[in-house]
């Protein structure tokens, strides 16, 4: 996708008006609200859930949603609402760490490539192409096949794919900045490329990176659900949304609530993050916003 970075003004003044614009955007507000709700539920699950998700009470199995069990129970008699709360923890953690991996490795690589150009740039970008050439779900399946299934390996699998995303984005945006007059001026003043990158380039592309981070976060949630669904994500007894859907598959006739609620949880989380990202992007790019 095309990367347009038109802001060359100082960071602080932009930031304030950005927030104002963002908060005025309906999709941003809705997105943030949903995301906050999920995050709060996830954090709350550390100290409290309606029922203990580690305890299987077989006699309670497959209860339909009621005041006792809001989202019903699964085939082991566990409370689905509690499982969704704990599952949120897992989804968020996996996606968040995967984004962090992508950022921590991708951004320096991209910035380095843009600052140095030449063969380093070529090599890095070829390596990027190489990683990009492996469809993410395929590499995730391969990685988990080697190291065995589990939340940590799901993180690595998703994180690896995030690296080239951030490297490309950073490099592209940084390249366009390097040709700007004020960067040239800084170079003439004798500042080192590393210093220019830290002082002038990175602050100016932070917004872009945050927006991309939100998108990768939501993609990570989906990817984690997919991996858990095929049995390669978090392992029992830890509940995860994808696994819950896998287990619900055969119960569609006797307990459709087992499939419906985790599905809605995934959709809401991804939706919340996407709306938040869109709202941010609109707020950061007044040109697009004007056209909306």
């Amino acid at each position, binding site marked *: 996708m095309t990367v347009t970075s038109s802001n060359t003004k100082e960071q602080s003044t932009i930031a304030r008006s950005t927030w104002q614009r963002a908060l005025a955007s309906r999709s941003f507000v809705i997105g943030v609200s949903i995301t906050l709700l999920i995050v709060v539920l996830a954090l709350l699950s550390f100290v409290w859930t309606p029922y203990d998700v*580690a*305890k*299987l009470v*077989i006699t309670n*199995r497959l209860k339909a949603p009621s005041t006792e069990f809001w989202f019903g129970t699964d*085939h*082991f*008699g566990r409370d689905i609402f509690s499982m969704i709360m704990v599952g949120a923890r897992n989804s968020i953690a996996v996606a968040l760490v995967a984004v962090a991996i992508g950022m921590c490795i991708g951004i320096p690589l991209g910035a380095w490539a843009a600052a140095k150009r030449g063969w380093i740039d070529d090599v890095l970008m070829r390596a990027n192409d190489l990683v990009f050439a492996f469809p993410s779900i395929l590499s995730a399946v391969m990685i988990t096949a080697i190291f*065995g*299934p589990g939340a940590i390996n799901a993180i690595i699998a998703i994180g690896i794919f995030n690296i080239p995303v951030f490297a490309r984005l950073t490099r592209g945006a940084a390249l366009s900045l390097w040709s700007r007059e004020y960067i040239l001026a800084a170079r003439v003043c004798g500042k080192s490329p590393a210093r220019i990158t830290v002082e002038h380039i990175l602050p100016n592309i932070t917004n872009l990176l945050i927006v991309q981070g939100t998108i990768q976060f939501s993609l990570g949630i989906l990817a984690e659900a997919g991996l858990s669904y095929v*049995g390669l994500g978090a*392992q*029992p*007894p830890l509940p995860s949304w994808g696994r819950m859907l896998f287990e619900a*598959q*055969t*119960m*569609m*006739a*006797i307990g459709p609530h087992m499939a419906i609620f985790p599905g809605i949880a995934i959709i809401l989380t991804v939706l919340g993050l996407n709306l938040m990202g869109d709202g941010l992007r609109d707020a950061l790019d007044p040109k697009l916003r004007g056209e909306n």
Partner: protein
Amino acid sequence: MGISVKKTILTGMTAVLLSATALAGQAFAAKDSLIMGVALEPPHLDPTAGAAAAIDEIVYANIFEGLTRINENGEVQPALAKSWEISEDGKTYTFMLQSGVKFHDGADFTAEDVKFSLDRARAEDSTNAQKGLFAAIEAVDVVDATTVKITLKNPAGNFLFNMGWGDAVIVDPASADGNKENPVGTGPFKFANWAKGSSVNVARNDAYWGTPVALASASFRIIPDAAAATNALLAGDVDAFANFPAPESLPQIEADPRFAVVQGSTEGETVLSTNNSKAPFNDIRVRQAIAHTIDRQAIIDGAMFGQGTPIGTHFAPHHPAYNADLINTYPRDLEKAKALLAEAGLADGFKATLQLPPPTYARRGGEIIASQLREIGIELEIIPVEWKQWLEGPFKGDFDLTIVSHTEPMDIGIYANKDYYFKYDSKPMQDVIAKLDVTSGTDERYALMKEAQAIITNDAVNGFLFELAKTGVWNAKINGLWKNSPVQANDLTGVSWSE
């Protein structure tokens, strides 16, 4: 206006879809064909070169035949050998063969083929997975075209049964090497084609030597997961599952008059296999504590939706020699379990791993067991494994706990093998089994079997959980499918449709 247009479009779509389904249906609608669902795809189709049950589930009795065969009730019956004589000392078997039998490629079946097949199976470089079946054979001699004499090293009570295994089928020297891809046997069905990942198809062998089969063709459709199996059955894509993998769907299927649900027995003792050589499981008190904690009925209800019979030892409960009292040896008693752990110096519990192979009984049963053992402070880390990893790990003795169903018939003898993966080394047990091997009287044998069961239960070698149920689910108009599964097979020779 808007609504009526929409409605017309919808009706139109429905009509198109319906006519297409009708079209699709026609291809399979003839009542002399059968589509059978199987869980695992065979690696290849040569039963003499692999132990995978998935091979026998397709070819046994359908494509390939041996000297003898096992029937639905687990009895030995004549097959390519129409009769046999056993010498006084039990060491010489003379088989009289069927005449006029031809292989599917037209080659004649003779005594030479019997010698070839058995010599090939027991050869040094043989890749037969059950070489043990042939270990007793000293020599195979061709007497004439329809007579074979087999000399044994020592009398073996199981020999006729062994010759009925899928691994002991008779193959033709000319086609033997191609059987993996294009199996050529003497059975009532010929191999038609194999759509990899999808189905194996067979067609009636019109030149069959025995009673002709009613089905003109049959297709074994590979459906690995329980959800897909349920959907395929309900959608009418598959006519029958000999072993239906989704017990949770049974109430729904039983309520549907299109289907028959048939409960049979298996030889599958499902156990919490325990590494008896590894601390802390080498301490009998720890194993007994586990036994006192396990709630079998909760496992059967939660994992199998009530399908299965609790067992107190490693023996099929439908067998006359089953020691039924042993089920009460370790009643669920958490206080006692905790006390036993404390005696073993593990009052605070401990951590261990539980490796679970793919079947539902293991994956779901494992979660329940982990939850139960947590009640006495044992924290189990659940590790799901594929069969390949299971063979590399637990089956080689590298494990703490695992759950597996031992489906071989009469396999209590594995507890006398100290190298078997649960590493149980007990002199009394080894003595009893050694004695059993040389005992012939039924009553004496049963008494020894009961004694063996008591030994392993008292030692709490493994967590004895339940006997796997075999739930056959098929179209109510199908007759002749096996109710029980004494051996891994989907014998279609007696199957027909009633109208």
